[in-house]
């Protein structure tokens, strides 16, 4: 909410500069987002009288005016406004005047411009006839500003303004109001806090509040059929108003706070709302059938045209204001077109009501329509402020619009406001805030913002605090403590010199330590970490919700959001692969051809599993690795080499060994259109991930030009298996030498090596400690249907191995290979 410092000064003489004021407000919980100085000193701007006007000979849109500014000779001024006319009193910026004018590049930014003698399309021009925005008075640029005829020609514009109650300059302070401060959404509300901070007094305009009844109650009937949604409805009638523009001072105030002045009646309702926080609505009373107001909720779907000329569908249960025949306003949100104040209005019914905050919020949400009124009602307005606000508006309509107040008022008040009291203990304040505040000081602070305090006990000190009606947010002791702390000043709370740490042993999450360790392992292996968006278009999520990938294996649906920002981000990722492919494509397009990337993140599936924490959703952590282009770079020492599956396989083996996961197996994956080929990674029988070459059809949409390998692991499963591993115990290193034997065997050309390794490992027990493949050969010298594989076997034991021990183990291995794979020793 924006406040005007001039306007605020009407209620409190705080003696602070705009910046000091902003600082104090911020430090008491009313955060100032910006302070904008408006207007200028108007030095050099004078009142002029347009004596004549002729068309500019060389420009259709311009005219040449002779303007009397009280000097001996009139000034010739070229003017571009169409509304300029002889006889008008205008504001003239004379030569040498500095004005803040909108820049050509960005009209919302102004820069100082000095008026100079100029020739405009061949005609001399000695100054400028100003529009109101050129004077920093905001808004209207549709034409020059036309002054009162009574303005004395040649006098300063400043004098003109101040004679009319306007100020030379103003400050707009934009305050971000938190939801707990409905009392601060008005100038008087802000003034209340400023008073508490500075000790200055708040002066509220005096308003005569008539007794309920009188002539008004004979002409206006108000009935409330939904008292739970409307606890009070006050109506005041003003007749014979003359619809006109508001006086300059009011227009200036409204403009400063960002409102567009409309007509005197609408402006007054806005003015009073920003003055005291009570939203008002003005009905054209002649459009209110039967002079009757009925407050009731709709039954069934209703359509209604609001005063912004939009037809709206109202859900059942919407609280409406009706007259004798029809709906005339959506309660607390917006009036109807059928009863709004127009140029022809003469009689005005002012509505000042209290509507239930939740009901207004629900309606406002359902209609996606937030107004200044709904913003205040949904936060909770002053439950006792209705009569004052209605009469304040009526008084202004009498003063400024020539209206006549119809005697009396209607005040339907089915649910009277009951003041709330809260018990507050002085000791509790210290327990929360951590600083000893003197009890008298606490009392002074809360009294300053309108709370009443009655002592219940002096030892220990306890009070009964009565909460003012404009603070609906204060319900409990802690709310009062917050008020005390806020006004005492958080900056005045001292920091203790020592830290308090409880005497307990923080548990360490192995899951997290492991993840951090793997991050380091991967960064050390040349992979760069990425953070990609979790939200994907639904077509992408559908395509990658593959049962070859960790989250897709749950065979659930893709998780959709109900209210996406764009369709590009309407689902949660079932895999990190598409996000990664996008990164690969982006980087290749920017000249990075050799890529190794990784990311840890959550992937999602709509499926109830034993991992579901919330609803029917399964969320697991995934680790993705991707590599595209060259794995090793070309250099003086040799050619570069494009990444292949074994590069990623080696990295995955490194990762899994780093977390201590053993018994890793790789088996061919079943075909998947996302991949050209790949292997599933298992630990024992448990699936933990996949390593694959991404198919060209899958990389194509991402504009990827080189072979791309990926691995995605179910990190939740891996953590589950490894995080609870018992502490490592040292195992004595064998003092006995190891024996190495090489074994080259011939096997069928199509025979996979993986199962052979498994057989060797099994058959070599217990002496075989390690096995590796050191050569693979097919071609010249061997049977074309065969290939030769050479294994290095390493044997060891806790005794010295004799040759025949090892021979026996080797022949056991050979026999198994012969049996399982028809392998022949080469």
């Amino acid at each position: 909410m924006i406040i005007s410092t001039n306007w605020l000064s009407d209620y409190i003489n705080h003696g602070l500069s705009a910046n000091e004021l902003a600082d104090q407000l911020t430090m008491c919980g009313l955060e100032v987002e910006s302070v904008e100085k408006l207007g200028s000193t108007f030095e050099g701007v004078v009142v002029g009288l347009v004596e004549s006007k002729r068309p500019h000979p060389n420009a259709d849109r311009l005219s040449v005016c002779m303007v009397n500014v009280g000097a001996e000779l009139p000034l010739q001024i070229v003017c571009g406004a169409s509304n300029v006319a002889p006889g008008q009193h205008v504001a003239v910026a004379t030569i040498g005047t500095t004005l803040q004018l909108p820049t050509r590049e960005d009209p919302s930014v102004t820069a100082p411009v000095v008026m100079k003698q100029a020739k405009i399309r061949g005609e001399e021009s000695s100054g400028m006839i100003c529009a109101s925005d050129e004077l920093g008075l905001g808004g209207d640029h549709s034409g020059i500003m036309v002054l009162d005829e009574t303005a004395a020609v040649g006098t300063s514009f400043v004098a003109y303004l101040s004679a009319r109650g306007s100020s030379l300059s103003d400050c707009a302070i934009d305050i971000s109001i938190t939801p707990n401060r409905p009392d601060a959404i008005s100038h008087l509300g802000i003034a209340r806090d400023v008073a508490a901070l500075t000790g200055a007094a708040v002066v509220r305009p005096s308003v005569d509040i008539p007794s309920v009844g009188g002539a008004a109650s004979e002409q206006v009937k108000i009935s409330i059929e939904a008292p739970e949604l409307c606890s009070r409805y006050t109506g005041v009638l003003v007749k014979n108003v003359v619809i006109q523009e508001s006086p300059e001072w009011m227009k200036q105030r409204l403009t400063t706070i960002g409102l567009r002045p409309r007509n005197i009646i609408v402006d007054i309702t806005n003015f009073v709302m920003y003055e005291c926080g009570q939203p008002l609505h003005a009905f054209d009373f002649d459009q209110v059938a039967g002079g009757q107001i009925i407050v009731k909720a709709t039954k069934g779907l209703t359509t209604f045209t609001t005063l912004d000329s939009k037809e709206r569908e109202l859900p059942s249960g919407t609280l409406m204001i009706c007259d004798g025949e029809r709906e005339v306003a959506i309660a607390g949100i917006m009036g109807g077109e059928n009863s709004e104040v127009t140029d022809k209005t003469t009689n005005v019914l002012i509505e000042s009501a209290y509507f239930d905050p939740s009901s207004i919020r629900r309606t406002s949400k359902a209609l996606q329509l937030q107004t200044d009124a709904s913003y205040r009602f949904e936060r909770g307005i002053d439950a006792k402020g209705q009569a004052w606000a209605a009469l304040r508006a009526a008084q202004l309509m009498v003063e400024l619009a020539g209206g006549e107040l119809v005697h009396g008022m209607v005040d339907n008040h089915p649910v009277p406001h009951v003041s709330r009291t809260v018990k507050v203990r002085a000791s509790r304040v210290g327990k929360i805030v951590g600083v000893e505040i003197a009890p008298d000081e606490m009392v002074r602070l809360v009294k300053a913002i309108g709370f009443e305090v009655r002592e219940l006990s002096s030892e220990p000190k306890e009070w009964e605090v009565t909460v003012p009606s404009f603070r609906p947010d204060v319900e409990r002791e802690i709310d009062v403590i917050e008020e005390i702390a806020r006004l005492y000043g958080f900056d005045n709370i001292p920091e203790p010199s020592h830290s308090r740490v409880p005497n307990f042993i923080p548990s360490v999450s192995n899951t997290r330590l492991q993840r951090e360790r793997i991050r380091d392992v991967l960064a050390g292996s040349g992979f760069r970490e990425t953070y990609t968006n979790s939200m994907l278009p639904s077509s992408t999520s559908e395509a990658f919700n593959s049962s070859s990938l960790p989250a897709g294996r749950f065979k659930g649906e893709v998780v959709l959001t109900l209210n996406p920002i764009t369709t590009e981000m309407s689902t949660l990722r079932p895999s990190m692969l598409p996000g990664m492919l996008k990164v690969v494509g982006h980087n290749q397009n920017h000249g990075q051809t050799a890529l190794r990337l990784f990311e840890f993140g959550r992937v999602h599936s709509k499926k109830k599993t034993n991992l579901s924490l919330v609803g029917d959703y399964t969320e697991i952590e995934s680790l993705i690795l991707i590599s595209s282009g060259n794995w090793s770079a070309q250099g003086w020492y040799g050619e570069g080499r494009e990444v292949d599956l074994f590069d990623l396989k080696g990295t995955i083996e490194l990762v899994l060994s780093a977390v201590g996961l053993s018994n890793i197996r790789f088996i061919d994956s079943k075909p998947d259109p996302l991949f050209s080929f790949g292997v599933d990674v298992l630990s024992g029988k448990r699936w933990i991930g996949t390593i694959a070459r991404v198919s060209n059809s899958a990389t194509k949409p991402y504009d990827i030009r080189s072979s791309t390998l990926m691995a995605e692991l179910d990190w939740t499963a891996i953590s589950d298996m490894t995080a609870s591993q018992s502490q490592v115990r040292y195992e004595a290193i064998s003092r006995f030498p190891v024996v190495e034997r090489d074994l080259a065997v011939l096997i069928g050309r199509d025979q996979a090596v993986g199962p052979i390794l498994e057989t060797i490992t099994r058959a070599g027990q217990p002496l075989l400690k390690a096995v590796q493949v050191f050569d693979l050969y097919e071609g010249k010298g061997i049977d074309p249907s065969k290939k030769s594989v050479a294994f290095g076997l390493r044997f060891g034991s806790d005794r010295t191995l004799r040759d025949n021990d090892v021979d026996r183990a080797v022949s056991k291995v050979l026999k198994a290979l012969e049996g399982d794979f028809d392998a022949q020793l080469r």
Partner: protein
Amino acid sequence: MSDPKNHSAEAALAALKELQHEIQESVLDSIEAVDEYRIRFLSRKQGQITALLKRIPEVANEHKKHFGQEINAAKALVEARIESATVQFSAGEESSGPVPDLTLPGRVAAKGSLHPITQALRLITRVFESYGFEVAEGPEIEDDWHNFSALNFPPDHPARDMQDTFFIEAPSHVHSGILLRTHTSPVQIRVMENKKPPIRVIVPGRVYRNEAISYKSYCLFHQVEGLYIDEGVTMANLKQIIHAFARTMFGENVKMRFRPSFFPFTEPSAEVDIWWEDANLPDGGRWMEIMGCGMVDPNVLEGLGIDSEKYTGYAFGMGIERISMLRFGIEDIRILYENDVRFLEQFS
């Protein structure tokens, strides 16, 4: 006069003296030369020292000791020279061929890096771990209860507008509904559901906000929240820990201020600003918000069965992106999610 044994000893000593020079000066500049040297002196059949050793019995008793010492010393010297030359050659092919061009660049190793968000998060975590905080994590898809209601957001309250929410399932009744968590505070609730005070925990994680994407906001970001529930915890303690944190992140002399604010789950609530020097600004800098915090609202504690009269606590929360953007001088949040290698490699 001439005892044949004396004569023999003299001859043997003379022979040894003759060898001394060669033992010491022979050039051992290749493996071959070392082999030749060893064969010449130590070989069982032709070795000259071996031959002298065989002659010991011929020497007269009174000279035996002296002769034996001399010959063994010579043998030790030969062995030492062989040893040192062998070590030298086995360390590399130093002498085989010319020295390569050492100005050629090294073989390229792929360079990895950690994302700036990870780096900032680690720094933040380390600060709080050093003050005895545990680390907890929780789900990104949350229910309304943990994300809002248990945190004292009343239904139909404007406080819910403070965090624009992505919904997954519309609420069918009060407190129901499934959504993407808007903050990591629901994990605080999950921790308190499972644990009795003292509780001292930080919660890092990804959170989502349904806001238009711009240079300063993205549809998701990462938060670290902290929670400390114990007997006798006050706002003064909160100020102290936050100040310690700010000094670690932004320097010992960081200027910090606490100003009152509002969060449904804390009361009193505050926002923390640090003074950010910027010579281009009229005041020489400006206040930058780095986090929100406050004393845990009694409603939150009571809702979890924690006696709010006995226990008090503080909570705080900050955006990691915001902190890393400040630390690293990043001006557009979107670049963090673009993952351009030219950006990532700056954080190696």
